[in-house]
């Protein structure tokens, strides 16, 4: 068996030049309030910030110009993304649309859908959330039961989605629905994807607070919701294949090892410039992991750039390794410092530590659980 291939990331002077531009932008645009913000781990929802990024050409970066994109490389996009994540910039609003919904529409949408939706996403004006999970369907996505039945003018949707993060800020839900007959011998058949306005009559959104008291999650009930024909994205009954490529994109970015970077930065600050040997060893170990993860992650960006698509096996490996490291950080902070995590504290380390502790279990759950990732890797090894 060949060694698991992570082809060396290509050198990209253009990407490094872009990095300097992004840092200058961040220095100008990040306010102290933004730097202190601890909402979630993606810096929070901030439409104004999203629009500013868009005006610099940093949304829809790799899309064709005719759709409002900028035809830049995957490596350049990667640079913008990692700079934003490391700085804790408030990119939640546009994040999903830019990362996966837009590429989905680009790949599978009609020309009309591309012309209508992509420029708005690239303009930082259109935000999308993911409507996949249901109360009865988490990792087992093929058990989804929300159904879209055809009507003369479009579709009628009934069902219930949960965890739908940021519906309250989104212009669309990208909804996975069953459209074909139930067939236990072919569970992934008969799915379709729809772009649905959450303000459509028949939709009820109920907040689900997370354990840190924040409102990210929602439950969304669909009761005879009528949507037009062109709400369908891609082919009828082709939803599963479309979703697979979407998931690979979701798993291959730098966000899979940078979620706790703010914590690492504050730990480094408290450790000081003349650390104890113990602190030096622990911090050094984490940085060593990050350097290697970053190389693997950039390698994936290079693979995407060279047209190989987002590799599922490599993405799963990076995500599993990355989230494992992220989850070690709060425990490391507790080992190194005599500290009590304190939400809302003026002390940056106490506050960030509290925040990360409360979010850390989700790192190995969201976007593909650790168990699913390891099964994906096992499949990639030919074991399943």
């Amino acid at each position, binding site marked *: 068996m060949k060694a698991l291939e992570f082809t060396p990331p290509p050198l990209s002077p253009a990407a490094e030049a872009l990095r300097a531009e992004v840092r200058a932008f961040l220095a100008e645009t990040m306010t102290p309030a933004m730097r202190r913000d601890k909402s979630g781990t993606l810096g929070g929802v901030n439409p104004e910030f999203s629009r500013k990024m868009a005006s610099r050409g940093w949304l829809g970066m790799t899309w064709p110009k005719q759709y409002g994109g900028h035809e830049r490389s995957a490596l350049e996009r990667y640079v913008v993304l990692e700079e934003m994540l490391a700085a804790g910039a408030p990119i939640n609003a546009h994040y999903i649309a830019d990362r996966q919904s837009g590429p989905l529409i680009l790949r599978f949408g009609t020309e009309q859908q591309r012309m209508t939706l992509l420029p708005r996403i690239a303009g930082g004006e259109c935000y999308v959330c993911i409507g996949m999970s249901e109360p009865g369907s988490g990792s087992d996505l093929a058990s989804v039961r929300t159904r879209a039945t055809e009507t003369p003018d479009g579709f009628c949707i009934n069902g219930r989605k949960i965890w739908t993060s940021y519906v309250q800020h989104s212009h669309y839900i990208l909804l996975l629905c069953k459209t074909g007959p139930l067939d236990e011998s072919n569970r992934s058949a008969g799915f379709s994807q729809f772009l649905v306005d959450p303000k459509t009559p028949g939709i009820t959104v109920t907040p689900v607070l997370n354990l840190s008291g924040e409102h990210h999650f929602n439950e969304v009930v669909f009761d005879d919701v009528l949507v037009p024909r062109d709400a369908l994205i891609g082919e009828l009954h082709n939803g599963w294949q479309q979703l697979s490529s979407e998931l690979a994109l979701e798993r291959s970015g730098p966000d899979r090892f940078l979620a706790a970077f703010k914590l690492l930065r504050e730990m480094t600050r408290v450790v000081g410039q003349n650390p104890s040997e113990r602190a030096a060893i622990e911090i050094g170990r984490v940085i060593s992991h990050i350097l290697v993860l970053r190389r693997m992650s950039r390698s994936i960006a290079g693979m995407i750039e060279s047209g190989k698509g987002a590799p599922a096996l490599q993405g799963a490996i990076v995500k*599993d390794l990355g989230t494992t490291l992220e989850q070690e950080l709060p425990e490391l902070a507790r080992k190194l410092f005599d500290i009590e995590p304190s939400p809302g504290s003026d002390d940056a380390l106490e506050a960030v530590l509290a925040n990360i502790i409360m979010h850390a279990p989700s790192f190995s759950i969201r976007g593909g659980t650790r168990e699913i990732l390891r099964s994906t890797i096992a499949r990639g090894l030919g074991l399943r």
Partner: protein
Amino acid sequence: MSDIQSMLSDAITRLLTDYCTKEVVLASEKGVWASDLWTALTEAGVTTALAPEDQGGCGLDLAAALRLAGCAAGFTAPIPLGEHYLACAILAGVGITHSDGPLTIAPSNLRDQLVLKRAGTQWHLTGTARRVPWARHCNGVVVSASFEGKDMVALVVPAGYTVREGANIGGEPRDTLCFDATLPEDAVAPAASGSGRFEQHALGAALRSVQMASVLAHTLDITVQYGQDRVQFGRALTKFQAVQHNLAVLASQSAAGNAAADIALDSLQPGIDFFNIAAAKVRSGEAASIGAGLAHQVHGAIGMTLEYELNLSTRRLWSWRDEFGNEAEWAAYVGRKVAAAGADELWSTITSAGLSNVVSDRSEIGENRT
């Protein structure tokens, strides 16, 4: 990979597939020198690959050569190919010529100090170097020594040192050398960039990273194969999800080890990048540790025997991770560099690692280590 590299890699693969049987490797652990193998590799141009073409070599650069050494490590080949390449590269950098190998390098850790004094027109070398790889089978040792506070390089033939034999867990020679050598003028030179004491230490660490990645990849292969072959409760072990997940973690560690090795190999030229090599060694060692444990877990009892091949790999992983600086030593280096740069520069420190690849700050390696 260039054509020459491919050719040499194929030669190594062919020769080692035939030669490096379990019996040969175990025999080497009892002191048998694999002279047939070394001769065959020399005849195939492998051992001389670093030399310029007009001197009978292939003009390979050090990174390419260490990749070949990694290939040999994947076969658990009982020869100091990597150490020999490092020795040759160091000598070439300071203009000292040598005859046939194999050669090795010393010291292999930062605690041992060798000292040079002037003796008329010659030099006198004293000191003890412990755990020198393969020394008893080598035709000479390339040493890093200090002369009046300056780093020097010297080539010492066997007459210049006594050998007390020792071994690592992998059964590889790790000998203690007591130097008492009078050296001619042309066997000693001031260290060039890339051959000072810290540089040699880092080169050794880079070599071990590459070797560990290669052996870990091999370990993954044989463990997956075993899992597919071994049947219990009416099915192959790999049909059990718990085993699948263990193999998935092993594979992820192997992938990380490969990436770390790639980082190390990118950090040798134009100058030695200590920061990146340090990170590579830390990550490789940890990957080796986790990987070895999981490989044994999947294999069950048979993996604990001498007879079954797994131990040839895992005993080397357990050895190499602690050679040329263990994770604690190199992690401390990374951590001190990062802390000194300050928290606000943390992200910049990460993104600029390896970009300029000039000779990094050599100081602080091995500080506070007793």
